[in-house]
């Protein structure tokens, strides 16, 4: 169990690159830190590893304060973004290099190395040097090196970002499987929200050094706490538009009105609404609908992404299953379930409203 209590990091004593992080990571959990580059997620990971001193707060592993304990005594392993393999050593030597200091017998070292190599399909490459391996194989060597240490905690810093898309998908699965097989607590840093969604038990979304939201992937996807999380998680991103509030209606750029089933609190004047692409659907016969003009169509085979103009300035994307025959320039009737519309206040915080199950209706306006 890893506990972070008000963890902060500052290089100059004034500005904090990581600020006030509080989280408890359970044993055997796959915990993903996700955020755009520069959000402090790697710094946070390096602080847990002990490679970066902690400025404020306290880090506890299994209840023991670890702030000033050197990395070697924290009993964890780490996989680096560029693998950090020793170029002049063979795969086997790379895997067992860290074991020599841990008073492990030669047979045991050999046994662990073989096990790890077998698990990751490296048995034929044990005598090769890293430069003779492909990117995916190097990645596996780095994983094997983390595994043989048999530490209860494993940290990974964007381990898949140097691989191509196909291999990345495969390695996602392999890492996840490995983690479950061995029951290790995994802390995994990535900027790729797909990795975060597919691998994690829980994710922590970070931005600007601060925690935005912690939760299970689907929970974060369905109930984002603020605009940042809503727009960061999900691809294509959630459609977001600023709107003016007029009693039960929202006005977009003075062009469209959206009527809701409930009223907003009186003080709310400006809000942002968000709708996921998959929640905008083609209207059936009896649905209330609004007509939009299609600007772009991307057919991906299993689904079709339709970009349409909500207002003159703003484009939204709808995601429909299958291969739609909609063409650019078509006027199509679409509809949105009100329960799928998310509201955010001016500060970007989520507004939780009594959600009706009506459809929202849009109208063209002329002011």
């Amino acid at each position: 169990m890893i506990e972070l209590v008000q963890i902060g990091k500052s290089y100059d004593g004034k500005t904090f690159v990581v600020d006030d992080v509080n989280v408890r990571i359970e044993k055997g959990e796959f915990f993903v830190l996700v955020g755009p580059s520069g959000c402090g997620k790697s710094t946070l990971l390096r602080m847990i590893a002990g490679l970066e001193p902690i400025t404020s707060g306290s880090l506890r592993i299994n209840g023991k304060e670890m702030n000033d304990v050197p990395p070697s005594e924290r009993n964890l392993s780490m996989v680096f973004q560029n693998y950090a393999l020793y170029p002049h050593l063979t795969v086997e030597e790379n895997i067992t290099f860290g074991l020599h200091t841990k008073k492990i017998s030669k047979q045991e070292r050999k046994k662990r190395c073989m096990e790890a190599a077998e698990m990751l399909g490296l048995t034929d490459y044990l005598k090769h040097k890293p430069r003779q391996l492909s990117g995916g194989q190097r990645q596996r060597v780095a994983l094997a090196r983390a595994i043989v240490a048999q530490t209860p905690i494993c940290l990974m810093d964007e381990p898949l970002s140097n691989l191509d898309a196909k291999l990345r998908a495969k390695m996602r699965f392999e890492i996840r499987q490995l983690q479950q097989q061995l029951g290790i607590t995994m802390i995994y840093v990535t900027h790729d929200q797909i990795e975060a969604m597919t691998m994690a038990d829980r994710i922590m979304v970070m931005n600007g050094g601060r925690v935005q939201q912690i939760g299970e992937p689907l929970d974060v996807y369905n109930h984002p706490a603020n605009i940042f999380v809503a727009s960061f998680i999900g691809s294509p991103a959630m459609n977001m538009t600023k709107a003016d509030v007029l009693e039960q209606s929202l006005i977009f750029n003075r062009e469209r009105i959206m009527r809701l089933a409930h009223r907003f609190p009186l003080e709310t004047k400006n809000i942002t609404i968000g709708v996921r692409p998959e929640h905008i659907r083609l209207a059936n016969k009896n649905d209330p609908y609004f007509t939009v003009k299609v600007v772009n169509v991307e057919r991906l085979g299993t689904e079709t992404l339709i970009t349409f103009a909500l207002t003159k300035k703003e484009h939204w994307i709808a995601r429909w299953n299958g291969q739609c025959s909609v063409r650019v320039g078509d006027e199509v009737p679409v509809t949105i379930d009100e329960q799928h519309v998310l509201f955010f206040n001016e500060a970007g915080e989520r507004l939780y409203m009594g959600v009706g199950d009506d459809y929202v209706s849009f109208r063209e306006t002329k002011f």
Partner: protein
Amino acid sequence: MSIFRSMVTYILLVIGAVIVMFPIGYAFIISFLSGAQLLQGVLWPDEWSLRNYVTAFEKVPLLRYLWNSFIVSFIVMIGQLLVSSLAAYAFVFLRFWGRDVLFFMTIATMLIPWEATVIPNFLTIQKLGWTNSYLGLTVPFFALAFGIFLLRQHFKTIPFELYEAAQVSGVRHFRFFWYVVLPLSKTSLATLGVYSFLTTWNMYLWPLLVTNDEKVRTVQIGLKQMQTQEMATEWGVVMAAVVIVIMPTLLLLFIGQKQLQKGLMQGAIK
């Protein structure tokens, strides 16, 4: 045009080579001439006899000197490699207060001419009673700012993640230094090794100061001794000794040339 250019280049290079090689070539030829022939102004020996070489070994204990020089150069080389690499490791991989200031102070010592430190060094050696010993000939040269600088620059090219990975997996400093840093810095170590061997081999002033018998005296002093021993110097014999003495230098240069160039280049660019 390009043929013309390369012709000019090669002609200039040949002229340069001739100028540089002339003293060595001339010394080589003289080493086969007798004293009389030399005075007559003979430029090419009629017979290639090794008489002068034999005399050189008889006149002074040349073999002893060569052995001393070799021992001293070898010890200095090992000492410099060890001290420089350890210091460079600290400057690159350890975090401690005042690290960079300390490094620049180390570099700054390169500005002090070596001759300026000869007297204090000599006094120290004398106090320690190290005159006339290998210790006195070698220990003062172990710390070499240039060596520390050269190796530090090379160590900096080793990805820092390697160090961090070693830290996380609990690898101790010395193990990381010995099994990762040193093997990855072979070229720079070879460069520094050759450099320190040659500079020590060619050292003259210091051995002259701290030695006064032939037990530990090095070969450069031997050469001087040969010139001054008699009123009329037998140049043929002296040159024979010179040829013997420059042999190791030439050998090292020919063997280590590639490594030397690589190493110096690396230090320069990175």
